[in-house]
């Protein structure tokens, strides 16, 4: 065996041993706690959404259209809380529970817009606003397209 590949092997072994050491020493992510909290907070946000929807139906929106003002209201609340510097605290506490509903999407856009406002309206806010939300939009659209085509073919 050549000298070089022996050295490479030794390095690989060293790296593997080190991974093991790190896995032992690294503070564990409290997965169970995170899942439970995410479920509860995400559920709570959805309940708030449902309550808002009932409210809008009560105010005279047809049932199939009441979703739009509901989502808009949730976005408004999450954006406001982001601007007030509260949402990152909620996000740290609840993780995916705060991130997965539309509230997380609103937070990703507003936080980016706030962060880069000092770089100006065009190159800052305009260009960077969707740096976190962009992938969601892109792959949301791609997925919708694929599902749409599949739906048309296999109907």
């Amino acid at each position: 065996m050549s000298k070089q590949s022996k050295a490479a092997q030794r390095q690989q072994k060293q790296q593997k041993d080190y991974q093991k050491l790190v896995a032992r020493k690294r503070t564990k992510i409290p997965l169970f706690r995170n899942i439970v909290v995410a479920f509860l907070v995400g559920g709570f946000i959805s309940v708030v959404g449902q309550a808002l929807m009932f409210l809008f139906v009560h105010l005279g929106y047809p049932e199939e259209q009441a979703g739009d003002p509901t989502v808009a209201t949730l976005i408004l609340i999450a954006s406001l809380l982001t601007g007030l510097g509260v949402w990152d605290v909620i996000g740290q506490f609840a993780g995916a529970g705060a991130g997965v509903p539309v509230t997380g999407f609103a937070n990703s856009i507003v936080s980016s817009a706030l962060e880069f406002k000092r770089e100006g309206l065009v190159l800052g806010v305009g260009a960077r606003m969707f740096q976190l939300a962009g992938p969601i939009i892109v792959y949301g659209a791609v997925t919708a397209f694929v599902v749409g085509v599949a739906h048309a073919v296999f109907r």
Partner: protein
Amino acid sequence: MPARRKSGRQTVTFSRPVAVVSAACCAGPLEGEGPLRGSFDIVYPDMLNGEKSWEVTERTMLKDAVLCALGKGNLSRDNIDYLLAGDLLNQCISASFAARDLSLPFLGLYGACSTMAESAGLGAMLIDGGFAQYNVAAVSSHYATSERQYRFPTEYGGQRPPYSQYTVTGAGALLLGHGPSFQGLLPRLTHFTAGQVIDLGQKDPFDMGSAMAPAAADTILRHFSDLSLPPDHYDLVLTGDLALVGHSIVEELLYEGNLVLKDRLQDCGLLVFDRTQQNVFAGGSGCGCSAVVLCGHIMELFKQAKLNRLLFVGTGALLSPTTFQQGESIPCVAHAIALELCDDRFVE
């Protein structure tokens, strides 16, 4: 001509230990509420401190630290031969923009969070080599500027893992002077060990402690073997910003290398915050982390003669957002400076 002042593979021994004439540090609000709150020269009331952006705040901190150190050392800017400074931001803008306002001959350095040790070590080499009489070594970091560069917008609500670290908002400056010009008991730099870049394949940018620990262990072991020192030579071996995870790993790596330091091994990332009371996850990080601890708390210990010999090991993760997005692992470096409370002397 052989390198006369070189000891072993990576260590230099200064022929006249270089005096730390004065030191100064500034810190942000969270650090100002931490366990070391009494040791900072300036504590800013908020993260912006009235400036128009966080970047401006960071460079103001650096400038304040330098000017404060000069004031404490009773020296004017005309006395200073070189300003060696660095920070975490792209193109080292905090250091160079601060240098613009300070009008000093400027050498910009980048060693990520190891820059305090790197700048002090190089500054001392310049003095011991006869190229300078007074140098200032200074660094800064700011929570918000590094968050936006390395991670996410500050108000983004992502969940950080418990092993992540909190970038210290702070700046520190050491004023170094030619040994013989300062008689009496002073903390003096006796050795400098430049570290090798070590990479054991860690890839998680949230887990810098694990990435940097091997570099820290390598430099510490190298320093002890270069100078053939016993484990109890230093009262304190202080690593820069390994925080909870990295600290316990480096302990184990040193143990494997037959160096047992026990309580003599501490970490600035764990000293600067109270992890039980403050929301900083595994502890502090950033250039400012080791700088505010060294220039504040540690210099006070020297002044009170509670500390005799210190090995200060700055640890830096040399990653950029581009490299980790491209899936590369995190190369790390650690530089060590040895400080001793002693009189001026000639070492041969």
